[in-house]
């Protein structure tokens, strides 16, 4: 070989941090569970991680402790009228038909429920992937040689169920606040809130599970987590100008270093690329 380039674990960590720093994504989704329509805006990015280079024949780049950080802003929209019973005071109305006058009823006021309300709750996303393994491969593109890394399949368990309490609290508070503005139902508010929560609670597991699955899907859209498209770790132009054209004098031809072949392996915990120059 005519040229050798070796990158240590610290150097590879530097390169990997550049890739991790670029790994961010935002996506939105929604679904309906019973009377609840839920929208969710996911923003996630990666941070941290340390690189371990595992020698050939494994030739693996292992990244330990990559943090997945971000938020999912959830928006629960529901119509109280679809959840709460109709409440009238008094509950029953007595009507009588009076000749020559018509039907006459006792007074009754039915509570008009407010229009559909939306409760927003922002949930944190914070988990650590303890180990990610990437294989290395060399690609010959038309103008470049690329030493890329390709992720081996891994499992990721995102569990938002601990956030159920925050959702319940937020919805409870909001419903309580809304109902408090309605006259004549003061004694009923606690029970009405419970009705809403009773409608929500059986659905919350499915809702959070769906959001977790969505986050998982979104994460897999990150280039770094692609299982089919390698991510460039080192890129080499096949033709590298060593002496520029027209310098030092006009008309000077460019003198290039042309990389005719390139190989990469991990040896002694270093990523070693060797090149043949044409």
């Amino acid at each position, binding site marked *: *070989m*005519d*040229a*050798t*380039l*070796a*990158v*240590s674990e*610290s*150097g590879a960590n*530097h*390169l990997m941090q550049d890739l991790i720093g670029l790994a961010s994504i935002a996506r939105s989704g929604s679904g309906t569970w019973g009377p609840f329509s839920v929208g969710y805006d996911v923003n996630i990015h990666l941070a941290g991680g340390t690189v371990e280079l595992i020698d050939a024949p494994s030739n693996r780049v292992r990244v330990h402790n990559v943090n997945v950080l971000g938020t999912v802003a959830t928006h629960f929209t529901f119509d109280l009228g679809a959840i709460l019973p109709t409440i009238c005071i008094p509950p029953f109305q007595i009507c009588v038909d009076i000749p020559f006058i018509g039907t006459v009823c006792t007074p009754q006021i039915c509570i008009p429920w407010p229009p559909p309300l939306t409760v927003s709750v922002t949930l944190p996303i914070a988990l650590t992937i303890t180990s990610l393994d990437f294989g290395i491969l060399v690609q010959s593109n038309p103008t470049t040689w690329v030493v890329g890394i390709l992720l081996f399949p891994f499992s990721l368990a995102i569990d938002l169920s601990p956030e159920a309490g925050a959702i319940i609290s937020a919805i409870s508070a909001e419903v309580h606040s809304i109902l408090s503005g309605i006259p004549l139902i003061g004694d009923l508010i606690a029970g009405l809130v419970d009705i809403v929560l009773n409608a929500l609670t059986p659905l919350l597991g499915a809702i959070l599970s769906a959001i977790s699955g969505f986050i998982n899907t979104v994460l897999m859209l990150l280039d770094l987590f692609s299982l089919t498209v390698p991510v460039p770790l*080192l*890129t*080499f*132009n096949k033709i*590298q100008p*060593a*002496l520029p054209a027209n310098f*030092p*004098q006009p*008309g*000077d*031809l*460019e*003198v*290039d*270093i042309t*990389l005719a072949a390139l190989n990469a392996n991990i040896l*002694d*915990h*270093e990523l*070693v*690329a060797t*090149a043949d*120059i*044409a």
Partner: protein
Amino acid sequence: MALTNGHDVFAALHETGVNKFIHNVFLARRYYFHFAVPPLGSGVPGTDFAVLPPLPVPGTNYGLAYSLDISQPVIDFTPQDATSTLPPPLTLGPNQFSLSADVQICLLCGFHIPIRDPNPNDPRGKEPGKGRHPQGDDREQQPERVCTHLQLWAVGHPTVANLGATDKLIGLEIDDIVVKEVCALEKIMECITEDAVNALLEKVRLTLSRIALGAFPVGLILEDGPKIADDQLEAWAKIV
């Protein structure tokens, strides 16, 4: 054994790679290797050969056309190749390279090129701007191209020059040279050729980022080297 030795990056150019690069320079920048006073010189002046001023002939107001052609130098990084013909007293030590090349020097004898008289007040009175035969007659002399071949060998060390915070210019410089077949002129020829070869080597320096094959576009901070060992020019750097 790890190559990076505690640094982010190790970059090395093997002597085969350097010689291929010099070959490319030799083909693309002919005027780095060929020098001549027209009408000597082959091809386009300034492109195929660097134009030299005539060689003044003492006692005349003319100069002679001459040319100097350096063959493609061959670089050998320590340890010395088995095929090396490095002559004594040169030896290839640690962190050194050797260079060998052939040099052809030609003179167009009898072809007089008028030159400006550097002594215009000389009472012997030469006419400025005209060629004059030393014997004072105007007979036509048929110019004759006479040439001699020399072999030179040199040893030297790697150099580094600043090129900003995130790159360096890495090159080679010779320290000692031997020119054979020149007898009593040896010291004079060695003086001239050492300067000429170092001027050539200065033109073919490479940046640290290029030695690292351009893989770090943001830049590299040189932390150790350049050093020559194991038939390679080596450098260690930190990724910016």
